[in-house]
């Protein structure tokens, strides 16, 4: 695999540090770090330790149940799974043209989720590190600390999330785990009254989103060396783009760039993902390792998510977000920005974009139409691809003549970023841990790099769990030297 810190030659002779689980991310994972007698880092791995098995137990279930069942993969981005599965099942029921109203409602649901998920990640989970410092007092390095020190910022973050959740409630029936999208369309209209209810706070939402972009851009400008160098690793990029190359998070074609920005492939139909993306497994993680087939597992790994998307597209079709993207691109003078911490900036640009798209959708007469579903000639294969908050999400199903699922393959956003996250934490370990005695603050640097990707480890193993943290330091003989335990927020 990619770098020297993937596998140490003599692990049994090394001191082992475990960060388990990683905190302030979605889902459950751990990091192991092996140090030699001089505290030089020899091996770093992000392990995904929970097994879920959705791909297996969805087999034998009726296809119309799938969009509801698979969203239980996640409590943060269930809408992504709901919609990716629905898009796949559209093909099964032959809905080659989903009615405009259904598409508008689904898009509204999706951009509502992008907005709430990005707001949750930045304001609740990531901002404490960025506002207070990676090794600041852990008792304050949390959302409660942000509420105390920056009450307006925290409040706006919470209200942004609330707005997104309300969109999901109105379009899906519930804020979490609704049922709005069904094969061939949606089951629920948006009434003019509901549309007007969502329009009311729009001006504030856009203003808060713009302020979020400004905040990260300013943090980046003020700490440029840190933000650009922290855990930075070069890789290819993957995302959907609209047929005209613009950013589109709901539908489009697959485009990949190499680390320098050159096109690797473009215009690839979602149905052909299997020819471009292959998956590897490693014995130490339940999360798979996808790679571009044409480059192979050694060189074919890539990044997905906001940082990939806003650099992979040719433009953003909403003015405020496009202006913010241009400012972002101007920093790197046309080269690809690979810094994990730039994910936060890109994420806020997407949050602003989502707010603008929502504004447009709420002005679209199609949104409140009555034609909700379509059907056509039955098919046996359905492949639905969507840009989830964390990156490209692929749902692939085979359905038999009796309407039962016979095969399911899910490549989840976080899974695409598996190697990239591993390489980022290896880079941070080289930069900050090498030769030093690990402390809580230093180990949080590892977690900061993981958090930048906004991983959803539950989704990625197709897991339930909170994020208490245990750090064990074991000497070369295997004896436990220190054990620190954290439950949720404080160590």
């Amino acid at each position, binding site marked *: 695999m990619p770098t020297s810190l993937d596998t140490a030659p003599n692990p049994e002779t090394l001191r082992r540090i475990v960060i388990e689980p990683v905190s302030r991310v979605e889902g459950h994972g751990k990091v192991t770090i092996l140090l030699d007698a001089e505290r030089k880092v020899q091996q770093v791995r992000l392990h995904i330790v929970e097994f879920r098995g959705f791909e297996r137990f969805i087999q*034998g*279930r*009726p296809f*119309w*149940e799938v*969009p*509801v*069942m698979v969203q*239980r993969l996640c409590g943060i981005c269930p809408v992504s799974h709901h919609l990716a599965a629905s898009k796949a099942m559209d093909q099964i*029921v032959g809905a080659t043209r989903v009615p405009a109203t259904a598409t508008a409602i689904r898009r509204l649901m999706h951009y509502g989720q992008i907005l709430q998920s990005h707001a949750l990640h930045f304001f609740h989970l990531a901002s404490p590190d960025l506002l207070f410092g990676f090794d600041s007092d852990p008792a304050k390095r949390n959302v409660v600390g942000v509420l105390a020190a920056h009450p307006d910022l925290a409040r706006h973050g919470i209200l942004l999330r609330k707005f997104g959740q309300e969109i999901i409630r109105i379009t*899906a*029936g*519930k804020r979490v*785990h*609704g*049922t*709005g999208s*069904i*094969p061939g369309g949606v*089951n*629920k209209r948006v009434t003019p009254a509901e549309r007007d209810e969502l329009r009311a706070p729009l001006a504030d939402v856009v203003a808060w989103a713009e302020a979020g972009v400004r905040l990260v851009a300013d943090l980046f400008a003020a700490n440029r060396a840190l933000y650009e160098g922290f855990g930075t690793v070069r890789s290819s990029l993957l995302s959907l783009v609209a047929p005209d190359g613009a950013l589109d998070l709901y539908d489009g074609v697959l485009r990949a760039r190499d680390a320098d920005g050159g096109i690797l492939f473009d215009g690839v139909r979602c149905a052909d993902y299997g020819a471009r993306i292959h998956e590897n497994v490693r014995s130490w993680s339940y999360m798979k390792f996808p790679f571009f087939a044409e480059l192979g597992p050694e060189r074919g790994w890539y990044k997905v998510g906001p940082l990939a998307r806003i650099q992979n597209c040719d433009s953003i079709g909403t003015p405020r977000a496009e202006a913010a993207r241009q400012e972002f691109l101007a920093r790197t003078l046309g080269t690809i920005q690979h810094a994990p911490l730039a994910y936060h900036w890109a994420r806020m640009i997407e949050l602003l974009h989502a707010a603008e798209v929502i504004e447009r959708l709420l002005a679209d007469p199609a949104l409140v139409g009555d034609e909700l579903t379509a059907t056509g000639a039955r098919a046996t294969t359905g492949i639905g691809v969507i840009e989830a908050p964390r990156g490209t999400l692929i749902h692939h199903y085979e359905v038999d003549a*009796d*309407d*039962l699922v016979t095969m399911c393959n899910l490549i989840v956003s976080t899974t695409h970023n598996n190697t990239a996250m591993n390489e980022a934490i290896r880079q941070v370990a080289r930069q900050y841990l090498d030769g030093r005695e690990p402390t809580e603050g230093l180990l949080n640097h590892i977690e900061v790099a993981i958090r930048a990707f906004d991983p959803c480890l539950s989704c990625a193993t197709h897991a339930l769990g909170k994020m208490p943290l245990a750090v064990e330091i074991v000497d070369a003989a295997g004896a436990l030297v220190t054990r620190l335990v954290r439950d949720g927020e404080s160590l």
Partner: protein
Amino acid sequence: MTDASPPQTFQMDGHDVAFTPGQSILTAALAAGRYIPHLCFHPEFTAHGSCKVCTVKVNGQPHASCTTPARSGDVVESDTDELTQLRLNLVQFLFAEGNHFCPSCEKSGACTLQGVAYELGMTTEHYSPLFPDRPVDASHPDVLLDFNRCILCELCIRASAIHDQKHVFALSGRGITKHLIVNAESGRLADTALALSDKAMTVCPVGVILRKRQGFAVPIGERRYDHQPISAVAVGHRPKEDGHE
């Protein structure tokens, strides 16, 4: 003549409940707007008292209220902590015996078992689930049988035999191995005479007998028990054609 005679009544939880001769305690109570939790009872079929969820105490003795005739002067206890706990235990047994995954079940929000569980305050299965292996029967072009959710109420058996005159369904086995089967040598639903217009299609209180490709067509907010608990729906609304009650 009957207009002149005073209504016959029994007392339930301190209230007079009027009845006409031939009514059971359950049917009289429901008609009077007093809900008694129940699962295997359906007003169009002869009660057979198998699920025991409708158990009440009549003059201090436990009886299935669906099969116990109402009698003038009887003292009936239904809404008591003791009976609620017993009913809860029965419902929890049912959840533990089958595979009832409400989060992905298309009957959620319109399911009698789920509605009764909510009514009884069930928050957990309590008992260790058995996770039985029950493959679905998807052989019929228009109907899916998901045996995972069967509670052996026999309503489909009664509807198919008595109303539809087809005898499509039956129970087989004994005790914990008892299970629903279909009347075909192949054992497949496709080889039975079941039709979408059958009464048996409409009586399943859970999510076993399902019209294919219709799941989740009814949005959250419009399902049977989205706005009122089963106790209110059961005594205040006329039964719908697409489901139990």
